[in-house]
């Protein structure tokens, strides 16, 4: 049984089609990265899975139960992008209240609350009012409240986008620790986070699934090699002109320049190896760094999303 099954999900808001026949499955115990640009339909999908929104068409199941049913809500943990809490409550009171909603007995609630506050680093502020919490602290409390019921499926909507680097690291480590224990379905547009914790990836664009595969397989299947180079300060100004000429060549997929560095994604590696260095020399670019790099998920993502999602 899949942890999440989505079949032909559509959702329209007036004339806007937020989801356009989305179909995907997520295996139990995996950390699934739901990747897509802003407006791709990630949040809408998660809201439908939690039962907070209803699909215009299609169906979805979470932990084997149709999304939105009471039994599904018992099996799911949910963290929205910007979680909001009752400002007059303390985090301990909030987690206790959530435990009551799940019908947990008092000793279990007490133990689970203490355990989760420790886990997300809020034990020391357990008696402070949530109203005075920073965004990062609220995000951590959001993670704790999503875990109160030991969910089979954890739905995280951009879980680390509001956190500082240290908070992000901690949150991602927490997600990693959940691997195997529960299925994590995590929407994000931060590719580095997906590369770090997700073992499967689904890329969504314009409400449709572009592709879905294990992360390593995805990189191997779609990514093409890239060359990264860095010019010295004296010749960095020549990079844009060199890049403009390079883009028309048939063996070049794309060229992106940023300051003194450039990234060239190629279609023909052997030809690139032969022709790139002379082209740089001809353009008068003096190199301080030059290497062929492993294809990244970012390359795959940009390629698939800009191609318009016709591949599966």
């Amino acid at each position, binding site marked *: 049984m899949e942890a999440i099954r989505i079949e032909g999900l559509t959702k329209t808001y007036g004339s806007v089609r937020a989801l356009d026949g989305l179909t995907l499955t997520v295996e139990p115990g995996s950390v699934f990265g739901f990747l897509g640009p802003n407006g791709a339909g990630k949040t809408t999908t998660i809201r439908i899975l939690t039962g*907070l929104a209803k699909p215009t068409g299609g169906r979805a199941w979470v932990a084997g139960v149709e999304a939105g049913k*009471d039994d599904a*809500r018992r099996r*799911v943990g*949910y963290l929205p992008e910007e979680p909001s*809490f009752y400002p007059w409550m303390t985090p301990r009171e909030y987690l206790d*209240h*959530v435990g009551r*909603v799940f019908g947990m007995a008092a000793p279990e609630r007490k133990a689970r609350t203490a355990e989760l506050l420790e886990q997300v680093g809020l034990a020391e502020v357990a008696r402070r009012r949530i109203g005075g919490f920073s965004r990062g602290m609220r995000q951590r409390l*959001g993670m704790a409240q999503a875990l109160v019921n030991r969910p089979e499926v954890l739905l995280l909507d951009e879980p680390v986008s509001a956190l500082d680097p240290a908070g992000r690291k901690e949150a991602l480590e927490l997600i990693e620790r959940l691997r195997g224990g529960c299925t994590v379905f995590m929407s994000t547009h931060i590719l580095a986070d997906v590369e770090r914790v997700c073992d499967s990836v689904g890329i969504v664009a314009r409400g449709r699934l572009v592709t879905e595969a294990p992360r390593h397989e995805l990189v191997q299947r779609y990514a093409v090699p890239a060359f990264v180079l860095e010019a010295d300060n004296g010749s960095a100004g020549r990079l844009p002109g060199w890049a403009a000429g390079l883009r028309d060549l048939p063996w070049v997929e794309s060229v992106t320049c940023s300051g003194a560095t450039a990234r060239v994604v190629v279609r023909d590696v052997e030809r690139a190896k032969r022709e790139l260095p002379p082209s740089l020399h001809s353009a008068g670019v003096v190199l301080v760094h030059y290497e062929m790099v492993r294809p990244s998920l970012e390359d795959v993502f940009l390629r698939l999303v800009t191609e318009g999602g016709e591949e599966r």
Partner: protein
Amino acid sequence: MILLVALRKEILEQARSYRLLIVSLVFLLFGLTSPLLAKLAPEFIKMLPQGEEMARLIPAPTVADAVGQYVKNISQFAVLLAVLMGMGAVAQEKDKGTAALMLSKPLPRWAFLLAKFGALSATFLAGTALAAIGGYYYTAVLFQAPDIVGWLALNGLLLLLTLVYVAVTLLCSTASRSMVVAGGLAFGALLLLVMLSSLPVVGDYTPSALLGWGSLLVTGTGRAAWGALWMSLGLIAASLLASWVVFERQEL
């Protein structure tokens, strides 16, 4: 069971957000001062230019005046507070996202709504009880003790009138995402009911008719308004039912 969980949170919120305190203090203040204002009305008139002559024409204040003042003050502030306290109850939670987070868990929407109505009812019950105690005591001290059963019935009817506006405001708050819009809709409904209450025949069936009945039970003046009682109970039930139907269809 789940209703008790939701109700516990709502009652805690009423206390922590000082709503319970505010309502209690306002009701107590007007409960205490209403008989006093009735007693001192002639003295106030005397302070006006040529007030001495006017005061001589006015009969000495009685229990009926104290009760009339009490009913007028409490009902006006109860309705105003019902709208102010209720207009953000659901709309604000939807707007801020707290409702979405809680309703993604196994908390049914009917329990969410009913708990809000229950907690607001408890707040107004506490306020009405304090006003009733204060008003009874001062009326007894300044005039004579009113009939206790009649006094309790009067306050019960005042509470019922307040709960009609709590339920209507809750419906407005459920139907809109903004607290301001909810407040506007609730005040619109309030105006409509006030206008209807001034119509012949129809007025006898509006919640405002409960006030006249309440006065009758204490002072012997006024008319029984069973129609208004059933209409008020019906309005509360219909508003809560409509809130639930609307809320179930909403996406958060």
